[in-house]
């Protein structure tokens, strides 16, 4: 990383942290959780003013060209306060359109960069716990039919990157969601603050952007950026739990002095550091376009998901009775850790992707025997 780049990133981080502390107040976050399909319009407006959607975008569409490391910095800060913004979806939609090399989308790219438009990633199917599975959405002749599972920001987004299949196999499609043939179904969920919706397409116009390779690249990059959001959340949970363990007293001492508590928190610290190491290495591999970038991304996703789930769960637990109240903050992280784990596919799904990349594909393993 160049030195001036590092300075830019540090000032973006500083700015992001200040803005989020101001805006993502407990009351504000609780309001968002109250209703299904909530989108944080206020925070998005501030983010747009600050130019966050443009951070990773290339200069020719008006971006700051700070690369995935720029996006990672903001995602980490967002994760710290359980903010929810479609920054990853905007960046990756633009990246996919640019990669596809198709003309006529300059305005769309500029709008995704400025934040005038928002995007969603619709990669999961209702019938499979992984993502980018053989699929319930099918395309032919530029029209797509079928359904996609709950996708963050799909309740409000203008466009979506949709995984589907056509006769040649996997495909990644650009779909404008304002078409009458698109049905968005908003459902009550445990993390209502992500503006999630299930999508249904019926002969919906869809622009083909690329095949399996692009699908793999986009889902990897989404996992990579999300890993930083998960890291931010993990760190916040650990800080919160340690603060509480130092303050809360029982049996004549701070509960953080009991090994049942302090060892639990030290274990989470180890998971956080492992996840941080994996995420940093994966980011570096993408920046250098190293051949191991896919497997390092799988490792980053697995490590970050593990760390955030445990940190969120145990932070709530350390808070005792307070942890299960609406008023206290741990449940925000408990919800978010799980929704981020589900949106892009479970640990088991990424484990299989990792092992496939290591040459241990499950389909090449002969299954069954003589049964």
């Amino acid at each position, binding site marked *: 990383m160049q030195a001036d780049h590092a300075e830019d990133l540090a000032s973006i981080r500083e700015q992001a942290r200040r803005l989020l502390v101001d805006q993502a107040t407990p009351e504000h976050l609780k309001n968002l959780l109250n209703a299904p399909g909530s989108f944080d319009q206020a925070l998005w407006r501030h983010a747009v003013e600050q130019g966050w959607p443009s951070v990773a975008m290339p200069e020719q569409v008006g971006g700051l060209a700070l690369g995935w490391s720029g996006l990672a910095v903001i995602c980490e800060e967002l994760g710290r306060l359980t903010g929810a913004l479609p920054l990853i979806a905007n960046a990756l939609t633009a990246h996919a359109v640019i990669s596809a090399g198709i003309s006529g989308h300059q305005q769309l790219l500029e709008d995704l960069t400025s934040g005038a438009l928002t995007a969603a990633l619709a990669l999961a199917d209702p019938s499979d716990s992984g993502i980018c599975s053989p699929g319930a959405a099918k395309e032919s002749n530029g029209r797509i039919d079928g359904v996609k599972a709950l996708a963050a920001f799909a309740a409000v987004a203008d466009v979506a990157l949709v995984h589907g299949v056509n006769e040649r196999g996997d495909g990644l499609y650009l779909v404008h969601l304002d078409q009458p043939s698109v049905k968005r179904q908003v459902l009550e969920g445990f993390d209502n603050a992500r503006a999630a919706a299930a999508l249904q397409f019926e002969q919906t116009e869809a622009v083909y952007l690329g095949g399996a390779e692009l699908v793999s690249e986009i889902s990897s990059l989404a996992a990579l950026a999300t890993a930083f959001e998960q890291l931010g959340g993990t760190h916040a949970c650990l800080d919160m739990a340690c603060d509480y363990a130092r303050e809360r007293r029982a049996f004549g001492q701070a509960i953080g002095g009991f090994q049942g508590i302090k060892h639990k928190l030290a274990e989470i610290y180890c998971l956080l550091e492992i996840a941080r190491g*994996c995420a940093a290495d994966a980011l570096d591999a993408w920046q250098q376009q190293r051949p191991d970038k896919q497997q390092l991304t799988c490792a980053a996703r697995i490590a970050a998901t593990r760390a955030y789930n445990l940190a969120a769960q145990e932070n709530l637990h350390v808070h005792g009775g307070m942890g299960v109240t609406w008023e206290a903050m741990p449940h925000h992280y408990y919800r978010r850790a799980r929704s981020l784990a589900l949106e892009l596919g479970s640990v088991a799904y990424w484990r299989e992707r990792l092992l496939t990349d290591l040459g*241990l594909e499950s389909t090449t393993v002969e299954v069954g025997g003589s049964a």
Partner: protein
Amino acid sequence: MNHELRCYREDAQAWLAEHAPRYSGQARHGLSFDDDLALARAWQAHKVEHGYGCITLPREYGGAGESELKKVIFCEEEMHYDLPLVYFGISLNNPLPIFLRYAPQAWKQKLGPATVRGELIWCQLFSEPSAGSDLASLRLKAVPTEGGWLLSGQKVWTSWAQIADWGVVVARTDASLPKHAGLTYFFLDMRSKGITVQPIRRLGEEKDLNEVFFDEVFVADEQRLGEVNGGFKVAVETLMIERYAVTDESGYGPTLENFIDLASKARLNGSPALADGEVRARIAETYVERQGLRAIHRRALEAFARGQEPGPEGAIRKLLLGRTRQNLAAMALDLLGANGAQLAAHGHSVNDFARAWLDPSLRIAGGTDELLLNTLAERVLGLPQDHRPDKGVPFNALAK
């Protein structure tokens, strides 16, 4: 990492490629304990001659007078060979440097260079039957006598005491003070009258550990290192000398690749074991942990190169590797089925899962898992210390 260090690493790699094979691998097969030890001494002397022995120690004693980072780099490269290093693991890294910091000049001249060259070996007499993790509760006593002290009591888990020529020892000189405050640090000739060394038999027959009994062993006062009753500070300093200890990324057990290889050949209910979700999950977990530890290590070395103090990386690494080595080995044995219970004749913990499983000492020696978790919780997360009922209480007033 800067240019100078990169060059240093490349030079070390080339030097090792040329010299290490004569002292490692095939060259060690079938050697008796004495012959392996002789080979180890020869390797140490050879390194010293070429500026790779005792890299951080002053040149006047035969060291290379170089930075700690260069030592870390050389150790990383040296670890790729199966060299006979274990006999010097304690001697050169803890007792010798502390001796060179505190001993009178004449003694340093007398023992320093010979120890650096591997002709003398030192042991570290710290732990006792009632003082393991809690070192300061040790009982071996030193009573003043004319010109020095008489030491009586017992040490345990003393690595290589049976081949050691000299040792450093911590003894209790004043039991009326709280436990940390009444200790004094000495060095002594292991052939002194009144010392008895008894080997301890281990699970895997490793021949490293001993009990050492002291029966009124005379130690001259000029062999005291540090102040009277100031020994705890010197002991902690001894343990902290290696601010960043290099450890093998598989915890000196078989590698992940060894496990994958074994799993690829194993079958479970007539199917390939590699199709089993639990096996696949273990491979993924181990990969992820190793990747995270590699990143942590690299970042720590970069910080080290910038002149920053090492952080808690070493504790994380030892904690995770100790458990992973044990668990991965147990699963490997599971995959071998009933025949996994065999113990190959010449197996070694770095290439044999049964041997690796049979030696879980990485989780105990040099700080147990529990102690490392305490260290992380207290020093990094700022959580309170455990309740310590012996704090500030005179040692002789404590419940025995």
